[in-house]
């Protein structure tokens, strides 16, 4: 029987010991003497969250497909184990071998959201790896950052040896090969980094220098070493039908993960171009997977995991052109095997209602709409192509089909937002309620339940709103109050429930999202003060973050409130994310004028992603 890194007494003491023992179905175990490269792949959050990440699962299998590589998983120890490990000096370990992370060649950390940054430091710290890349020696693992947050790596630049910008499928082989070659030739860590920096998509922060103007904005950002590229090109799988790294044996956790089901990625990217949405911009071009391959993949993954549910993953499933064929295939083939089919939020139309009626209990399920803004004017500004008519029509159809629960998602604090736009949220909810009560009483299914939920808008890099100023905490609270008052003044207000996110964590997210290299000291200070698991309401310590800002003398407002000038050098400008700066700027101007831009299937808007020579950009010519 395998030896565990933690003693029985510890595992009996902590919550959910199964987070730390490995040994799950489909976990990959190799003989360590038979591999050349050992990779510890980390999602810096608790096991149940990390195990639900699709990108990590894809790369886990892809790395392990290499005979010379053994990739293992690492997650953040929960706070109970964190305290024990610190007290007893137990180093962080990988799940499969239970070996210390420090013994590995690479530590890859994927960052899907900014609020995991203190957990990244926790992982490094518990592993016994110096937090700063510059303090690491030849024996330390090379620490690679990736995921959506790598599109602005600057706030975390001090802590990583290198970043991988874009989709992992394309350049990792070259990176691992370069490492092996360097080792064979007796090269140093620096030799390898110099080589890595020339591989497409790889950014080595230490080879770049930043200087600043008096006003704090960036004066220059350039390589400090010959042969280092000045622009990093994001990596994309061009021909997703051929190059998709399909895996058929996802690891099956013993404890219930957040995604306790098969997740089937049906497409990458999005044709919509909502101006607030970072994913919709950085994952361009939109690429659809082959429907026959998806059917085969679904069967294999269900068989190999034994999961009782399958869910489709994409940014906008309704835009997947073969959706009907795929969904009816899943229903026809798996419903009689007692497999639940979980549909991502589809645009509510006849097809969606038919499918929902087949796979869910209408009485219990709810309709989801994400208008994002309360008025047509505001929706035009954000380029959200969903009209009030669409919503009322879809809702009306659904109400006649027996549904009586509606969820509505909005954002507050969008650029150019007025009080009217905020009040529009309550009014839209009221219209939906009215639409319900127009149905004759005997045909209704009791009372309607509408739940309105608002989040606060965070401007993100590589979106047309990357230049926008963000609201202050007080502004956000004021906006939520207006929204609440308007909802409470509606005729059917008793049918409407309103909830909103806390503004403090949003403001911090805004700081981290558009920060530069100088923000790293605040993150480190916050971590030293005890911040951890910031994405978790119960452990988020805004007071400690505020203290960290004060002690480091960094102004949060400079990064959040300020609208950026159009000629300002932004911290992430050295990345070529596919969408050009010209396109984003054009969209920023269109937004201010309240003009919409057609989606990729209607008309090409020349965003720049066509260079990747794949996906929706070439559909018409096929």
């Amino acid at each position: 029987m395998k030896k565990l890194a933690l003693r029985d007494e510890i595992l009996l003491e902590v919550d959910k010991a199964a987070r730390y023992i490995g040994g799950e179905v489909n976990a990959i175990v190799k003989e360590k003497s038979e591999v050349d490269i050992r990779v510890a792949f980390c999602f810096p959050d608790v096991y149940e969250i990390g195990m639900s990440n699709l990108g990590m699962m894809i790369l886990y299998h892809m790395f392990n497909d290499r005979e010379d590589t053994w990739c293992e998983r690492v997650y953040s120890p929960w706070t109970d184990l964190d305290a024990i490990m610190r007290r007893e000096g137990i180093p962080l370990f990988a799940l499969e071998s239970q070996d210390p992370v420090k013994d590995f060649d690479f530590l890859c950390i994927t960052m899907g959201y900014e609020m995991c940054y203190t957990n990244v430091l926790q992982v490094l710290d518990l592993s016994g790896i110096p937090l700063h890349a510059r303090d690491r020696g030849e024996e330390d693992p090379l620490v690679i950052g990736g995921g959506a947050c790598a599109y602005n790596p600057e706030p975390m630049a001090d802590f990583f040896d290198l970043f991988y910008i874009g989709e992992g499928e394309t350049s990792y082989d070259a990176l691992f090969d370069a490492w092996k070659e360097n080792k064979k030739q007796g090269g140093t860590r620096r030799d390898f980094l110099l080589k890595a920096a020339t591989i497409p998509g790889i950014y080595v922060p230490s080879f770049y220098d930043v200087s600043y103007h008096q006003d704090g904005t960036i004066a220059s950002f350039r390589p400090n070493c010959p042969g280092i590229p000045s622009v990093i090109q994001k990596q994309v799988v061009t021909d997703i039908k051929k190059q998709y790294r399909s895996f058929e044996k996802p690891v099956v956790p013993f404890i219930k993960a957040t995604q306790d089901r098969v997740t089937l990625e049906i497409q990458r990217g999005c044709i919509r171009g909502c101006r607030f949405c970072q994913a919709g911009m950085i994952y361009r071009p939109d690429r659809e997977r082959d429907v026959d391959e998806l059917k085969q993949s679904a069967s294999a993954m269900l068989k190999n995991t034994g999961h009782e549910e399958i869910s489709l993953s994409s940014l906008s499933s309704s835009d997947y052109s073969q959706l009907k064929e795929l969904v009816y295939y899943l229903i026809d083939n798996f419903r009689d095997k007692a497999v639940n089919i979980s549909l991502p939020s589809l645009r509510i139309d006849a097809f969606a209602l038919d499918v929902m009626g087949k796979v869910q209990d209408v009485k219990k399920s709810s309709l989801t709409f994400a208008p994002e803004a309360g008025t047509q004017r505001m929706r035009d500004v954000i380029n959200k192509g969903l009209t009030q008519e669409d919503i009322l029509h879809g809702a009306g159809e659904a109400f006649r089909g027996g549904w009586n629960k509606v969820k509505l998602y909005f954002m507050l604090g969008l650029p150019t937002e007025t009080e009217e736009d905020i009040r529009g949220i309550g009014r839209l909810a009221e219209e939906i309620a009215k639409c319900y009560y127009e149905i004759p009483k005997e045909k209704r299914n009791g009372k309607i339940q509408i739940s309105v939920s608002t989040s606060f808008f965070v401007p993100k890099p590589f979106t047309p709103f990357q230049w926008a100023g963000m609201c202050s905490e007080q502004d956000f609270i004021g906006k939520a109050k207006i929204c609440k008052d308007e909802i409470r003044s509606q005729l059917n207000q008793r049918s409407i429930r309103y909830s909103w996110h806390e503004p403090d964590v949003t403001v911090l997210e805004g700081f981290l999202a558009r920060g530069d290299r100088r923000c790293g000291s605040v993150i480190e200070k916050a971590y030293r003060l005890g911040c951890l698991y910031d994405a978790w309401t119960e452990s988020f310590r805004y007071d400690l973050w505020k203290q960290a800002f004060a002690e480091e003398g960094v102004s949060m407002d400079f990064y959040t409130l300020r609208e950026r000038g159009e000629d300002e050098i932004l911290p992430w400008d050295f990345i070529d994310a596919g969408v050009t700066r010209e396109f984003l700027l054009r969209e920023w101007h269109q937004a201010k004028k309240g003009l919409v831009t057609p989606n990729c299937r209607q008309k090409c808007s020349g965003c720049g992603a066509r260079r990747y020579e794949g996906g929706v950009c070439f559909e018409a010519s096929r």
Partner: protein
Amino acid sequence: MREGFALKLRVRFTKNGSMKFIGHLDTMRYFQKAIRRAELPAAFTAGFSPHMILSFAAPLGVGVTSQGEYFDLELAEDMDPQEFVRRLDAQMVDGFSVTAAKAIENRKSNAMSLVAAADYEVGFRPGYEPSFDWQSQIPAFLAQPEILITKTGKAGERQVDIRPWIYRMQIKAPRILFLRLASASANYTRPDQVMEAFFAMAGEKLSPHALLVNRLEVYARKPETAMQGEEETDREPEWISLLEAL
């Protein structure tokens, strides 16, 4: 959907090594997924969220290994129990093993309600061996007219006499104790409760996590003796393993 059932099986499995850290509910989830991976013809309940008709005999505490765990499962198609064992065992991860299955003729037979007693092997985790001569104290412990422990339940704390529920307590090997304890829902007695009382009598404190507990078998009462169930007699009832109590 496979509704209605053709066959009910009682399945025996073992749980060893690091799988002892998988809790009861997660063990159930693990088997549900394993049964699907093995593509066994499980019967499902009707409705929008169908589930297997699966019932476990006796929950096993976290940290305890077992050589005799049981669950009942309804199948929608007839199949050879040996074939079932072979296919399900092929889906096990290191630490779990499916060792036997038998068809249950009496549809009403239910593993959970049959459970009456269980055997355990109790040892000490290295570094936690007691410093006193505990082995010689067993006769004195068992000779007590009553052994009171405090149980905490929904209704608060209450004193319970567990002496009638310790059917056997004997030295099995050097530093290894054998226990046969009552395990029905009304008199369920855990090895650590017994050991804690034992240490208390000797004036010693049992440190948490000191025990290494291994469940060996779970029993039902032999049918002809079942009727006298609640009477207190000095004679130990007769037992049969759950796999024989069909």
